[in-house]
């Protein structure tokens, strides 16, 4: 049930942004745009980032926030963040922009990017699990 509600939320969020703002919801591109564009052009990016950051408050109206720990070490988190940032900027998209928006538009670039992203994530996870 939560998986279905989650899919509805993600799909609805993407739909609102394209139907009203005419923009693709790609979080890596939005963060990058926010950091490099003049303040005057950043209203919608700032609002969207704020919405994402405040979403746990909306969630808490209905559910308790899960307690869990981020288990990766600081060094691994920095390395992971760097690879994710570099990769998203090189391929022009991340999970939201390529794997949800792009795949739903049947963009060949995004479908290929998604298969490669997931393939490498599966391999990396399992290799690390084996050696660590």
């Amino acid at each position, binding site marked *: 049930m939560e998986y279905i*509600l989650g899919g509805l939320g*993600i799909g609805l969020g993407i739909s609102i942004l394209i139907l009203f703002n005419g923009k693709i919801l790609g979080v890596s591109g939005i963060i990058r745009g926010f950091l490099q564009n003049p303040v005057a052009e950043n209203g919608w990016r700032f609002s969207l980032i704020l919405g994402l950051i405040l979403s746990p408050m909306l969630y808490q109206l209905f559910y308790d926030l899960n307690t869990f720990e*981020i288990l*990766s070490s600081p060094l691994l988190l*920095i390395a992971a963040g760097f690879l994710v940032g570099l990769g998203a900027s090189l391929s022009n998209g991340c999970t939201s922009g390529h794997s949800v928006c792009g795949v*739903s538009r049947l963009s060949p670039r995004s479908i290929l990017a998604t298969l490669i992203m997931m393939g*490498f994530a599966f*391999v990396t*996870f399992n290799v690390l699990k084996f050696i660590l």
Partner: protein
Amino acid sequence: MKMTLNITAFLSGAIFGFGLLVSGFYNPNNVLSFFDIFGDWKIGLMITFILSIIISAVAFQIIKNKSLSFANNPVQLPDTKQLDLKLFAGAALFGTGWGIAGICPGPALVLVGSLKIEVVYFFIGLIPGLFLIPIFFRK
């Protein structure tokens, strides 16, 4: 006008984030379980992923041939078609990073709002990563 666009962008982010929270996609441990095909594989996030694609596909179908959105803003859809090395290498690097920690940019912002302080380390890597390329290839 501008105010409307800020409100819709805020709602979009908040509802998208709600979806990440309710599905558990924002929790890196769940994402890593999704990658754990030989162990305790949790395939449930696939349902979330497929459903979000179906709903988005309807929205993109509605907007496809329009030049203005419902709030009269220009519609910007990517028109890049090239399947090049940048795309493949970028996706491979992204996947490697995603497989290490189970965090990608959307969930990272939700983790900030969930006060998971450790996510700061992810951003310390993410932001230089996002800006390294344009220094070498000027766009």
